[in-house]
């Protein structure tokens, strides 16, 4: 500590001469200041003290103010209180966390004492750093665990019925995502459920609600039986089916409606104050005929790209986002995927992808790329992935991106 810098804090220049002489002998760089001077000094003029030597006559609160001031400038010197005669004054400083120095102020003793104090401070600081780092590591580990668990909420494999190719690209913006997709069998394997959803917000909160919403949707759809839905509604002259000329729902419509309406009711009843909701597209596909019945809950309209080069068809919303409005009605949409057609379902991470210059990828460019691409199925997703990467460039991915391509092979 030959070049130790010392800031000596004293009110009336009453520091004992013996101490001052010793500091000189030890060749310490000493600045003497009153607390008032220290606090009044412009930033950067306090030097970079290793040791803050304070007179025990100063109030511990005054010392604390100076320490805080130094801390603001990024300095955390070892604080040592000294006393000449009034040793009892040291008590308050020691209680406040300072170390202490008492006569005789013999050079070797002072050097040894200050070295001890310094090492002790360093040690406790290192300990704090290690603890903070450990906390960060544990946080990252938890997040990693969260990511792995969340992957378990996505299907391991996608069903591949005869004549169909179903492929997905899923790219979270952060470790955990609010987007999700799902494909599963319904109605004794006669139908396929296709889900792509986007929970508002990103990160851990969205991920928790993703797990909830995905489970509610899938469980309700899979467990949905007859439930006297049709009979009750028809006999009560309910309006649920009035959009259909015939009062019978098509196969898959009952689990579909039960899942979406049930999830909406659950969220609005139990979680409305948390403000989380999801936009989603939930379709039930008959792989034999290509018939699709769906609910689009406030989601970006999926694009039905025709094999014969006709204008792509957008499957517009049939209801609001799920989890916003209690007891809202969701309508059913119907379409058919013909041989050679591809249904492209995606989240807003695609259209709202931003280039380095801040431009959005946008609907028009997406539609253009989808219709002009000569490829289908997995290759179409590769193509869209490539186009998006090129568009975004080195800019950071700002939102989760999910794309699902449901392609019916040309017969």
């Amino acid at each position, binding site marked *: 500590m030959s070049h130790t810098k010392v800031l000596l804090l004293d009110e009336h220049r009453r520091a004992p001469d013996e101490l001052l002489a010793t500091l000189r002998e030890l060749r310490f760089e000493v600045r003497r200041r009153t607390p008032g001077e220290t606090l009044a000094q412009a930033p950067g003029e306090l030097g970079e003290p290793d040791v803050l030597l304070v007179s025990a006559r100063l109030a511990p609160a005054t010392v604390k103010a100076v320490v805080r001031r130094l801390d603001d400038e990024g300095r955390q010197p070892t604080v040592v209180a000294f006393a000449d005669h009034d040793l009892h004054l040291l008590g308050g400083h020691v209680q406040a966390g300072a170390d202490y120095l008492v006569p005789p102020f013999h050079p070797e003793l002072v050097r040894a004492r200050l070295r001890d104090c310094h090492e002790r401070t360093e040690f406790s600081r290192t300990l704090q750093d290690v603890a903070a780092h450990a906390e960060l590591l544990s946080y990252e580990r938890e997040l990693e665990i969260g990511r792995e668990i969340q992957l378990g909420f996505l299907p391991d494999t996608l069903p591949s019925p005869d004549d169909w190719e179903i492929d997905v690209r899923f790219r979270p913006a952060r470790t955990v995502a609010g987007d999700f997709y799902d494909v599963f069998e319904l109605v004794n394997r*006669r139908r396929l459920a296709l889900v792509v959803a986007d929970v508002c917000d990103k990160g851990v909160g969205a991920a928790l609600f993703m797990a909830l919403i995905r489970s509610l949707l899938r469980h309700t759809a899979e467990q949905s039986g007859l439930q006297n839905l049709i*009979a009750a509604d028809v006999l009560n002259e309910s309006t649920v089916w009035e959009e259909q000329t015939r009062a*019978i729902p098509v196969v898959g419509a009952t689990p579909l409606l039960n899942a979406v309406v049930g999830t909406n009711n659950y969220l609005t009843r139990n979680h409305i104050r948390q403000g989380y909701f999801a936009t989603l597209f939930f379709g039930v596909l008959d792989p034999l005929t290509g018939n699709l019945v769906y609910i689009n809950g406030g989601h970006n309209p999926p694009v039905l790209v025709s094999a014969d080069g006709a204008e792509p068809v957008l499957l517009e919303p049939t209801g609001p986002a799920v989890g916003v409005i209690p007891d809202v009605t969701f309508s059913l949409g119907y379409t058919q995927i013909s041989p050679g057609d591809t249904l492209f379902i995606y989240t807003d991470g695609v259209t709202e992808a931003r280039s380095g210059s801040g431009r959005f990828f946008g609907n028009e460019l997406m539609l253009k790329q989808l219709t002009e691409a000569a490829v289908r199925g997995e290759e179409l997703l590769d193509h869209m992935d490539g186009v998006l990467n090129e568009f975004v460039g080195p800019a950071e991915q700002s939102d989760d991106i999910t794309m699902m391509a449901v392609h019916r092979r040309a017969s």
Partner: protein
Amino acid sequence: MSQIITVHSYRGGTGKSSTAANLAVLLASSGHRVALVDTDIQTPALDVMFGDALGTVRRSLSDYLIGRCEIEEAAYPAEADAGHDGFFVVPARSRAGVINEIMGRGYDVGLLREGFDRLIDSLALDVLLLDTHAGFNNETVTSMASSDALVVVTRADRLDMAGAAETMSLADRLGCGRLSVAVNLVPSGTPHEPLRAKVENAFGAPVTVALPYAPEMAALAGERLFSTAYPHHPLVAGYRRIIADVSNGTTALRRPAPHPPSLP
């Protein structure tokens, strides 16, 4: 044009299933391709009435609804009853266990309509005749809603006619197409006009026919179909009146598909 005809009654014991079975056999005997479906899962009847043709039932409507088979596999040919190979019976259930499963788990109601359509297509049917459970349950309502014509079987008593308004209102909402009200089990000697007036007043619709109570039917004890056993009985003439009333005019024998699907 194929046609779906549902036979329904508000209460049980009106002779609904007998009527459905006889209508089906008469339609088939006159050359139409017909399938008769028993949608009464709770209290099936057709598996007994057509026991000779069905043998041991392994596939049924219930098995189809819970995913154990396809609907075509549940259609049993009943040539002997029609005199040609275009008559089929779909029993309601195969064995007692199925009912627990179907009542406990339920099924997707859309499968009923889809199954009806598939039977019509794959068996190249002219007429699909649906026998129903009394009252209004899912199978019954779905059958009614799928129909082009509805045959309402009723007795001329207060209990049966208590449901007339409800039946008619539902039929109207579901859009059942042609409607035929058949008063069944009319005791001999009942004055015709007061009976007709009473029933028409309750239903708000004309009565197609008053079918006489036939002791011969009771004597058959379900062993044979009435129209086969007594083809010239007035009751059979009454059945023919119903057919004439609800038929959409299909008279020509419909050609089966060039490659009819293989059946069990």
